[in-house]
C-alpha cells in the first residue's frame, strides 16, 4: 500500500509543533497589506502576531488570496515524485475558493499519473477545526489506513466538528462580510457579541447573540459542551491576539466538561483578516451539525 502525505493550508491554524508531531504539511495562501503581498505563514514569518493584529487595530485593511495553482502543483508533484498519495484537507469552500483550484490540479495530475491517489477534501470548516481534521488524517495514516480510506473517514466525520466563537468587535465582520447574518446583527450595536458557528454548508454563521463578554464566554462554553455530548476528548481553541480572553473561554468550558487534552494556537493571518483581533473560537468533535444559516 502506498504511503500518503497529509496536506492542509494556511487556514488550519496548526502550530509548527503540532505539524511536526503529526507530520502535516501546509500550502500557504497570501495576504496583502498596503499593496504588498506576504505569504500567509502559520509561523508568522513576515509579521509577528502582535504586529499583524495591531495593524488591523490601527484600521489597516487586510486582503487575502486563495492558494495559487502553482503552489498546489508543487506540493502534490513532490508527493507523487516520492511515490506517495495525497490527502489534502482544505479550508471550507464557503470561505475560500482554494478547494476548486486543488481539484483542478488533482485532475490534471491524475491524467499524467493514473496510479496516484490525490484526495481533496472540503473540510467545511476553518481554523483549528480544519487543523483537527488534518490531525485525524495523520492518525489514520499511523493506524495503517490507505489514503482513500482516510479520505472517506474524514468525509464521514467532518460535519461532526463543531465550532463556536465570538469576535472582539463587530466592525471586522462587517467589513470583511465573510460571516452570514441578518442585517440586524451588524447594526450599530453596543456590547452585543455574536456567537458564530460553522453551519452545514461550512459558512460562518452568527446564530445567536450574547450580551457582553461574560455571557459570550458562557454561550460558547454551553454550545461546545452540548455539541460534545458527553465525550470530552480533545478541545481546540484559537484566538486572534487575545490570550487572556482565550484562557477565560477555556476555563469556562473546562468548568463544565473535563476535556482530556486542549490544543490552543493563534488564529493565522487568513482567518484573522475576516474576524479581526479579539476573536476566540472553540472546536470539538461531537454530534453532527444540522444548522443552516440564512440571512
Amino acid at each position: 500500500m502506498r504511503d500518503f502525505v497529509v496536506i492542509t493550508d494556511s487556514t488550519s491554524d496548526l502550530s509548527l509543533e503540532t505539524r511536526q508531531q503529526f507530520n502535516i504539511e501546509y500550502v500557504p495562501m497570501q495576504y496583502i497589506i498596503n499593496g504588498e503581498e506576504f505569504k500567509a505563514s502559520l509561523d508568522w514569518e513576515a509579521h509577528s502576531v502582535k504586529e499583524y493584529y495591531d495593524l488591523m487595530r490601527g484600521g489597516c485593511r487586510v486582503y487575502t488570496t486563495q492558494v495559487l495553482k502553482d503552489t498546489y502543483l508543487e506540493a502534490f508533484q513532490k508527493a507523487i515524485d516520492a511515490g506517495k498519495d495525497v490527502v489534502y484537507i482544505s479550508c471550507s469552500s464557503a470561505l475560500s475558493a482554494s478547494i476548486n483550484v486543488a481539484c483542478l490540479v488533482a485532475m490534471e495530475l491524475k491524467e499524467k499519473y493514473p496510479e496516484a491517489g490525490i484526495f481533496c477534501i472540503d473540510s467545511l470548516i476553518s481554523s483549528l477545526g480544519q487543523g483537527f481534521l488534518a490531525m485525524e488524517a495523520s492518525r489514520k495514516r499511523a493506524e495503517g489506513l490507505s489514503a482513500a480510506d482516510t479520505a472517506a473517514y474524514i468525509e464521514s466525520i467532518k460535519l461532526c466538528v463543531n465550532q463556536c466563537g465570538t469576535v472582539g468587535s463587530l466592525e471586522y465582520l462587517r467589513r470583511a462580510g465573510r460571516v452570514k447574518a441578518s442585517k440586524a446583527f451588524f447594526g450599530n450595536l453596543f456590547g452585543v457579541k455574536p456567537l458564530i458557528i460553522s453551519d452545514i454548508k461550512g459558512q460562518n454563521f452568527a446564530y445567536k447573540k450574547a450580551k457582553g463578554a461574560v455571557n459570550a464566554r458562557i454561550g460558547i462554553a454551553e454550545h461546545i459542551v452540548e455539541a460534545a455530548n458527553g465525550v470530552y476528548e480533545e478541545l481546540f481553541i484559537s484566538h486572534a491576539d487575545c490570550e487572556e480572553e482565550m484562557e477565560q473561554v477555556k476555563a469556562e468550558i473546562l468548568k463544565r466538561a473535563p476535556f482530556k487534552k486542549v490544543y490552543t494556537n493563534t488564529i493565522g493571518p487568513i482567518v484573522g483578516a475576516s474576524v479581526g483581533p479579539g476573536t476566540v473560537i472553540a472546536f470539538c468533535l461531537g454530534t453532527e451539525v444540522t444548522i443552516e444559516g440564512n440571512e
Partner: protein
Amino acid sequence: MQNTLDGISLHQLFTSGYRNLKKNMEAINDLNVFPVPDGDTGANMVMTFGGGLQAVSETQTHVGQYMQSLSRAVLLSARGNSGVIFSQFVHGLSRGFAEKETVTFGDLAEAFACAKEDAYHSIITPTEGTILTVIREAADFLAENAKNYDSFQTGFDALQAQMTASLKRTPELLPVLKEAGVVDSGGAGLVCFVDGICAHLHGESLEDIQEDWSAPASMCTDFGPDSRLEYGYCTEFILQLMNYKTDLAAFDLQSFTNPLEQMGDSIVAVHNDGIVKIHIHTFTPDTVLGYARGFGEFVSVKIENMSIQHSQVQTAVQKEKVKFAIIAVVAGEGIKAYFESIGANYVIDGGQTNNPPVSAFLEAFQKFDAEHIVVLPNNANIILTAEQAAQAYTECDVRVIPTKSITEGYSALSMMNPCCDTVDDLIGEMSANLDAVTTGYVTTAVRDANMDGMTVKKGDCIGLDGKHLLASEEGRVETAKALVNRIMAATPKDVIIFFYGEAVTEEEVQALSDYLQKAYPLVDVGFVSGKQAVYDFIISLE
C-alpha cells in the same frame, strides 16, 4: 331635579366631566412623584375620554347602546396607565348599564361594581393608593348608599365628597406619594371628572377649552414655499349618498370608483347603507371631492400632504410580509432612527409625555403581514395600552415584551435574533438580559425637592435611576459621572450606553467618553445621539 337619565343627558354629564378634567389637565400632570417635567396623567386621561366622546352620537337616547359605543371608542383612544384604567372603568359602567334605556342614581351601584371589577382586572398587580383605590371606595360607598338618593344631584354631591376624601388618603397608602407630597394623579383626574358632572347637575355650564389635540407638539416639516409636491395628498372622506343626487338602490361602488382611478391610486373603497368611505392618494383632491359630491354630501373629509407625512413616518403603502415584526414605542428623532437601524420594523412615536393610544398600536399592527408581532412599549405607562391593543387585534399573534424604558427596549432589540424558529425563542432571547438593565436619567429639577436624603433646588442637574435620586452635581456631565459611579458601585455592569439629548454638545460627549474609558476600561461604552426631550442623558447599564 333629575331622577332618571337617558343617553342624551348622560352624554351631557360626561361632556361636563370631560371639560372639567381638561380644565385641570396641567394641574394633574404636575402631580408627579419626581421633580421632572414629564407628568402626563392629565393629558392621557383627557385624550382617552375626549377621543371617546368625539366618536359617539350625542343623540343616542338608549343608555345601554350609548354606553356600548362610548366604551368601545374610549378603549380605542386609551393611552397611559391611568387612561387604560379609566377606559376599563367606562367599560365597566357600560356593562352595568347594558339593556337599560334610562338609569336612576340607584343603578350606579351596580355599574360602579362592574367598573371596579374591570378596572382591577386591567392591572396584573393592582397598587393601592391609586385611581383604583378611588374607584373601589366609590363603588363600596355606592353599594351601601346609592339607594338612599332619589336625585342625581344629591347623589353625586355625596359621591363627590366621598371620592375627594378617598383621594386625600392616597398618600397614606402609597409611600412614594407621601414622600413627594402629592396625591395620586389618576385618582385626581377621576375626581375632577366627577366634579364636572356635579357642576352640570347644579346647572353650571363649563366651557370647552379649545386645543388641537391631533397635531404633534412639535410639527417639523420640510415642506416650504419652494417645495415640490412629490407624493400628492392622502385623501379620505365619508360620503352620505343623497337620494336627490343618485339612485341609492342602484348605487354600484365599482362604477363609482372607476373614474377615481384616473385621479389617483392606493384606492380603498367601502360602501355600507348609503355611506361610502374612500381612501385615495391624489395630486388633485379638489377634483376627487368635486366628483364625489355629485353623489352625496360629506360626513367628514381629511386631506394630508404626503410629503409631510412621508418625512414624519416612513410607512410602506404595501404590507410588508415578515415572520416577525418588531414594533417599538420611541420618542426622540435620534433614538427613533437608531431603533430602526438596529432592527425595529416600525416605530410608534411616543414616550413618557406622549403615550400612544390603543388605536395607534392597531394602526401599526395593520402595516404588517406578519406571523407574529412583538411590541416593545419602552415605558411603564404604555405597557398596558400595548397589551390592550394586542388583545384587541385578531389578524395575527401579537406579543408584548413589557419593557419599561428605552434602555430595556434597547436591551431587547439588541438581542433580537431573526433566525429564531419560534416566537417564544425570539422573545426568550430578547428578554434574556432585561433583568440586568439599570437605567440612569440626567435632567434638570423643575422644583425644589427633598428626597432620598438629598436636597435639590429648582434648576439643579439631577441624576435618577427611575426609583431614587442618586446624584446632583454642577452640570450634566459631572452629574452623569456621579450617577454612573453610584450605579456601578452597587452592581458592576459590562455595557454602558448614553442616549444624549439635543442640548448636549460633542465636547461633553467626548469628555464623558474619555472619563469612562479611564474609569472603566473593561466596559463597552457607546453613545447614541437620541435628540430626546427632557433628559440630557438616558443611560443604559447592562
